[in-house]
């Protein structure tokens, strides 16, 4: 294995007849066992990015490639329409954790049923022969799984329904389900934003522990810059469907170059710095994605906007090794 990575330049994305430019020209790569954070405000295209990688929507243009040792150059394109079987194989490798722990577990099924589905669908039950043995083997695997996400004793949880669990416990079940089939890539869409502050940290730590143990690649989506820095090695900043800045976590947080990243940085609560720091220098909201502004998408709000910013979309340029920005500055 030469390291899992994917590339996907994608150009616009169609919905309901009208074109919403939810993602435009988004390219990045995800390395094996890397945690990459995708940061931006609501409507910046973060969730769309995860959804197209998870193959929940087809892409309009561009390429998504997944490492495949059998392919001639080590990558296979997965951006076209996949057959049922190929899709199943793809989902075995790429799994998603959803934001809402209340809406992502079927309320009519027990935890046992919910967690055994991936094993059954992907035929991952390890057993010798006979239906009875298969059932015991599955149960043993479920016990192990629940223990691994800190839901102990496991037999106490198997017969419960999702509504009997707290938000944190449900998110643990979600994580257990995601990791049950040992995927190579996990797409985590704001997995802690709906949880209580006191349990957020333990969920984040658990995801990091899994990631390290199983050498999984993680795409961690969040609007919280500090959380992104805590989780990820690299950060991608998105705004209005386009990537504004990419770099290592410390580069992006401490030495942000793009005005939008600076804005995000100054808006984030930072108690250690106090309120005395500079006021925000911006106005306006995220632009319409149906008719995005010409040129740089951020220029209507940018304090440093120049004439050329409203004419041409600035290309991504490298400011330092591995630190890219989409800005003329």
């Amino acid at each position, binding site marked *: 294995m030469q390291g899992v990575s994917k590339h996907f330049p994608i150009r616009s994305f169609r919905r309901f007849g009208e074109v919403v430019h939810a993602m435009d020209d988004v390219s990045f790569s995800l390395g094996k066992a890397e945690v990459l954070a995708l940061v931006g405000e609501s409507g910046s295209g973060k969730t769309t990015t995860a959804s197209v990688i998870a193959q929940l929507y087809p892409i309009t243009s561009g390429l998504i490639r997944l490492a495949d040792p059998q392919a001639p150059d080590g990558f296979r394109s997965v951006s076209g329409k996949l057959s049922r079987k190929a899709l199943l194989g793809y989902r075995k490798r790429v799994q998603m954790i959803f934001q809402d722990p209340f809406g992502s577990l079927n309320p009519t099924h027990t935890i046992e049923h919910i967690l055994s589905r991936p094993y059954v669908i992907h035929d991952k039950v390890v057993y010798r022969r006979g239906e009875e043995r298969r059932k015991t083997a599955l149960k043993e695997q479920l016990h192990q799984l629940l223990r691994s996400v800190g839901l102990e004793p496991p037999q106490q949880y198997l017969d419960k329904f999702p509504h009997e669990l707290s938000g944190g416990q449900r998110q643990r079940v979600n994580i257990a389900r995601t990791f049950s089939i040992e995927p190579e890539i996990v797409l985590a869409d704001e997995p802690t934003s709906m949880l209580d502050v006191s349990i957020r940290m333990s969920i984040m730590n658990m995801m990091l522990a899994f990631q390290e143990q199983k050498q999984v690649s993680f795409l961690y989506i969040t609007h919280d810059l500090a959380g992104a820095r805590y989780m990820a090695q690299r950060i991608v900043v998105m705004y209005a469907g386009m990537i504004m800045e990419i770099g290592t976590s410390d580069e992006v947080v401490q030495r942000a170059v793009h005005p939008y990243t600076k804005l995000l940085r100054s808006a984030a609560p930072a108690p250690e710095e*106090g309120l005395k720091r500079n006021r925000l220098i911006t106005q306006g909201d995220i632009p319409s994605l149906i008719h995005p502004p010409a040129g740089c998408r951020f220029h209507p709000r940018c304090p440093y906007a120049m004439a050329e910013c409203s004419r041409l979309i600035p290309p991504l340029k490298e400011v330092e090794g591995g630190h890219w920005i989409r800005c003329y500055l």
Partner: protein
Amino acid sequence: MNAMQEFLSENILECQELVAGYELKAGFVRAVDGVSFSLRRGEFLGIAGESGCGKTTLAYAVMRLFRDNAKIRSGKILYSGKDIANASEEEVKNLRWEHISMVFQSAMNALNPVLPIGEQLTDAWLAHKHGDLREAKTRALEVLKLVDIPEDRYNAYPHQLSGGMKQRVMIAMALMLQPEIVIMDEPTTALDVVVQRTIIEKIQELRKELQFSVIFITHDLSLLVEISDQLAIMYAGKIVEYGPASEVFLSPYHPYTQGLMASFPSLSGPIARMGGIEGKPPDLIDPPPGCRFYPRCRNRHSGCDLSAPPLRQVKPGHYAACDGEYHG
């Protein structure tokens, strides 16, 4: 002390041993259990805690916005000599909005979707018989201007406004009758970081200009530390720590406060693995006899589970409900 300082240091609201909660079939949920605090004129008091710790119940108790099964069991809420907790409904009605107003959680749902915002703004003015519709409209346009919403939005419906604008309309509404105290219950929780920051800056600016006191309720401690003068940390219906915001942030005394502080990764400095808090809050119908944080506490020792430690002064002006034995 000159007259101005005296005026500013005067307690405007005092809450004494308040017990409030909800009457359920299974028993009385003591959502607020013996809470005392005081609010000075012009002060910004932050109340932080996780869901279910009683912070919203406390806010509703101060406004007496209880109905059906919610009750104030005992305690006093003193506002300029009057006890809100035991006042008649008529008296409370006069206080509400005139003297104490509130910005509700989730502006998205707090505004009536079928009425233009102008009509909703003038409502309180007319209900409190401050004058006729023309005067009400003048005042509404005035407060809209305060929160930077252009006049032509007066007849807009809530769905025509963005989330941040709706929240600003809520703030404008709370300021209609020039109250002395504004209670804000998670006013920025559903908003994006950038919008949140602009709202917070607006609140601070208005507070300086209009000199009202704020009780700001949120679970986002990192935000609160930045903006409050005084900080109260609630856990399972009780205040477990109280003091000047910077003091509580720099040297949190109660293990729960320490746990909360360790739940927010920072933007600068080395990235250290942080703990957070394991476990979940206790059942408030039948709370444990000792310290309510005992089952989740890292520094617990025998004795904590038997009797609850009272709030005590650990430094001048800084109180915590922990015996602090772990401090050595």
